[in-house]
Structures are given as structure tokens and as C-alpha cells.
């Protein structure tokens, strides 16, 4: 076993300076062999290691954890960033008030900004308005000329865009409830599958807890993510109603917008079994507890998802093209 140098030159207890180095260097040399969320005990170990409170075998074990588990390394990075920020100066009060006022739409005196001569006219606001105007014109024209390209595929979005121009740039995704006849299909020895064509990149995973190997020909069969129970309950309610959901809202489920193109016109299916994980409604007057639900999201768009597709029954009046199946994480 490697004792490491962080034990100091003679003392068993590392100095604060060396302990700083030990945790960051362990993160630096993280091997990404594990992508497992830390338990509360592991989090405590990592925190104590980073704080220089461990020595001997405990420190060595903590270092191994940080070097093996990507989330432990991330924890070290996060702790260090937050600690350094807390030790530093806070933003000036006047600046804070100005930023909050601007963000919240309250007129505030703009701080004088140092601008090079000749570029002042090209302020971000002017440029932003121009860009937004052009984008609105292009998008509006596109929707008017080709309503079938709306994410719902039935031209409804174009009609809505005409009724409410502010919604013109909000793509949405069809969602529906579903059941699966054979849950054994959700558990296979391998969580990877071959894909026929390039497209979805591993870098855009909704959550890298199951970090895929980074070859172009392989994509994960599913993704494990966590979503707030309130958010999931809202999605499922809309799925029961057959209402589409703005795709931006679904990013936690299907990854960043660069990996999920709503124009592909695919639907997201929610397993009825998820209902069992939703917390019971809170009685009036009782403080609501925030909770997070662990989901497993299967990508149904690539072969070989045929078995899954055959076993899934979609509860929707209209024909849908299943894209993802969100279910319980085992």
C-alpha cells in the first residue's frame, strides 16, 4: 500500500498546507474508476481529509477514495472553491443592489463602464435586441411557413405562436404515462449497447454517475439521474393530461439541449410505477420537505430497444414515437 508523502516529513499528522495539497493532488490524479454518489460517511471522510484532519491509515483510505471515485474528487474541488470564496471579499453592496435591481426589472442607475472609443455604440443591449429581433423574425417565419415542424408534429405550436408571440421560441416535448409488462427487460448484464450512427455524445449525459466509455460507437443503454419529486410530480401530471412540456424543463431528464433535439419529435414515457415514489401530499400548515427521486432513463431510440418497446404500453390517445422511458432506479 502506498503511504504517500502527505504524512509530512516526520510527523504523522500532516500540516494544513500539506493536507491541502494531498486532497487536491488526489483529485488531480483521480482515475475515474468509480462514478458512485458518495454516502454521507464517505462525504464526511472526504471533508475531513480535505480539512487535514486525518492521518495514517485513515488519510490513506480517504486518499484512495478521492483517487478512485470521481464524485469524491468533485467534492474536494467543490469544497476548495467554496472555502476560498468564503475567505474572500463579498461583492460590493452597491454592485449587488445594481445587479439585483437590473435582474428583477427594477430601474437602477447603471454603473459607468469603461468602454473603448468606437465600440460604445455596440453595447450588449443594442446587439442583444438586434439578435433577438432577427431570431424572432426567422423563427416566426419558419413556424408560419412550416407548421408541421412544430415539436408536437401537428402544427399546434405554430398556431400557439401566432396567438402568443412570446411562446414562439419555446419548443415542447410530448410526454405520456406507460407501463411495462416485463420488468426483467430493464435489467441486463450490460448497460451498454452498440449504436448504428453517431449522434448523442457521452459528454452530454444527464448525469455522469454511470459514466460511459468514450468511444463513438457505444452509448449507454440508460442514464441514472436525480430529480426533485415536485418536478417529477409535475411532469407526470402533464403526462396524464397529455400536455406537452417545454423541452428546457426536461433537460434534467434527457440531458442538455445539445443532446436532445425536440425537433426529433419523440415522446418521453413515464413509468406508472414512479407514482409509488412520489411523496404523499403535505397536509395544510405542514412544511413541505424537499425530496429527490432517483430515476433511470432508458434511451429507446436506438437498436436494440425492440424488446423494451414491445413490452411497454403507452397510455396516450394519439400515436407517439417513444424516445425515452423514465422508470425507477433499481
Amino acid at each position: 500500500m502506498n503511504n504517500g508523502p502527505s504524512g509530512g516529513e516526520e510527523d504523522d499528522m500532516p500540516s494544513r498546507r500539506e493536507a491541502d495539497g494531498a486532497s487536491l493532488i488526489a483529485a488531480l490524479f483521480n482515475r475515474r474508476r468509480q462514478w458512485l454518489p458518495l454516502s454521507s460517511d464517505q462525504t464526511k471522510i472526504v471533508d475531513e481529509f480535505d480539512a487535514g484532519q486525518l492521518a495514517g491509515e485513515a488519510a490513506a483510505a480517504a486518499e484512495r477514495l478521492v483517487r478512485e471515485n470521481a464524485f469524491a474528487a468533485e467534492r474536494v474541488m467543490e469544497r476548495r472553491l467554496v472555502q476560498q470564496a468564503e475567505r474572500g471579499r463579498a461583492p460590493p453592496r452597491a454592485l449587488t443592489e445594481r445587479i439585483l435591481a437590473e435582474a428583477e426589472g427594477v430601474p437602477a442607475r447603471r454603473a459607468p463602464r469603461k468602454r473603448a472609443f468606437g465600440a460604445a455604440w455596440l453595447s450588449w443591449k443594442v446587439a442583444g435586441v438586434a439578435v433577438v429581433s432577427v431570431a424572432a423574425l426567422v423563427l416566426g417565419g419558419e413556424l408560419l411557413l412550416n407548421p408541421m415542424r412544430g415539436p408536437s408534429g401537428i402544427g399546434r405550436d405554430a398556431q400557439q405562436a401566432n396567438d402568443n408571440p412570446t411562446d414562439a421560441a419555446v419548443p415542447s416535448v410530448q410526454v405520456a404515462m406507460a407501463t411495462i409488462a416485463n420488468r426483467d427487460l430493464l435489467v441486463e448484464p450490460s448497460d451498454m449497447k452498440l449504436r448504428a450512427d453517431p449522434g448523442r455524445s457521452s459528454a452530454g449525459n444527464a448525469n455522469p454517475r454511470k459514466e460511459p466509455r468514450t468511444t463513438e460507437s457505444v452509448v449507454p443503454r440508460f442514464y441514472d439521474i436525480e430529480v426533485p419529486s415536485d418536478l417529477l410530480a409535475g411532469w407526470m401530471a402533464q403526462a396524464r393530461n397529455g400536455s406537452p412540456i417545454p423541452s428546457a424543463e426536461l433537460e434534467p431528464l434527457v440531458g442538455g439541449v445539445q443532446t436532445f433535439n425536440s425537433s426529433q419529435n419523440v415522446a418521453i414515457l413515464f413509468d406508472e410505477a414512479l407514482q409509488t415514489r412520489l411523496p404523499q401530499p403535505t397536509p395544510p400548515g405542514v412544511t413541505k420537505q424537499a425530496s429527490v427521486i432517483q430515476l433511470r432513463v432508458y434511451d429507446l431510440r436506438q437498436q436494440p430497444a425492440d424488446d423494451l418497446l414491445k413490452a411497454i404500453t403507452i397510455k396516450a390517445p394519439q400515436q407517439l414515437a417513444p424516445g425515452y422511458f423514465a422508470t425507477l432506479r433499481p
Partner: protein
Amino acid sequence: MANDDISDIELVDLVVRGHPGAFRRFYQRHSQLIYGCIRKRANAADVDDVFQAFFERLTAKDYRPLRLWQRGTSLPVYLAKVVRNFVVDFYRAKKSREDAIGGAAEIDALLDPQDETISLKGHLNELRRLGIEAWAELDRRDRAMVCDRFHKDRTNDEMAERFQLTPGALRTALSRAQARLLAGLRTLAPEFFPDSV
């Protein structure tokens, strides 16, 4: 307003949905981190300008960087990376203006996280890349020691034999190599380190 009763995931979801008060909450929770990261990267005279520009851009882009954040990964780590990109772009745009090329760069790239920015793997890769840069600046013996210790996982006994050092001398040499590596890393990733004294 209570500031720690909801998770970052919930907070960011509220912000991107435009929930009343959510931006203020986000600001209260993360502004010091953002300000600190900017302070480490920007010239002292520009810090407030960059900070204000960051939030202007964030709201102007309808919180796109927050939408792209992968839930389940660390928001502070992600924000630090976004801020770093922003500062780089800020100075790139500033230089473009000063070179009288025009201000287009100011509009083009700011606050657009790239693919590698948004995953935990990307954050680790970035730290690794900076670490390799710092490692490359070490002298030959330091490089060999760091490589043996952290890449090849050699034991202290094996290393003592390879470098023909006593165990105590090895620990001293390794400790100093590690300190020099960190000193190099400090210049490349200052946000992970305390202010210089």
C-alpha cells in the same frame, strides 16, 4: 430569506423558470463564489465590471448556462468553469475592441459552455490538464517522483530504492516535489487556492 432550505437543483429550476425571488436567492447563495473566481482571474481594476457583465449576460441569455448545468453534478464546480470561460472571453473581447477589430467577439462566445464544460468528467479532465501543465514545469526528478507516486502507484519502499534514498529522505523529496507541483497549479487554477500572502 432563508437561503439553504432548497437544493441547488431546485434553486436553479426556479431561476430558469423565472420564479419570483429565485434570482435573488441564487445571487445570495453563489455570488461570492462567482466574485471570488473572477477576482482570481481578472485584473483588480476589472473585477467589478466583469462581475456585473457576468450577471447581465446570464440574464440576457435567459440563464442558458444554468439550463445546461447537469443536475447531480456540483454547481460550484460548474460555475467556476463558466466564470473562467467568461473571464477569458471578456478579455478576448476587450482586446478585440482595443485592436479596433470591433466588438463582435463580445457577443459571440460569452457564457456559452462547451460540451466538455458541463460534465463531471469534463471538470476532472480540465483539472488533469492543468495538473499536467504544472507537472511539465517540474524538474526531471520531481516529475519522476510525482509520476511514480501518483501515476504508477509505486510504494514508498519501491521509490526509495529507485531513487536510492532513505525512506525519510524520500518523504522529504516527495513532499517538496508535491509542493512545487501545487505551486505551479496555483498559477493555472488560482480559484482552488487561498490568496497569496
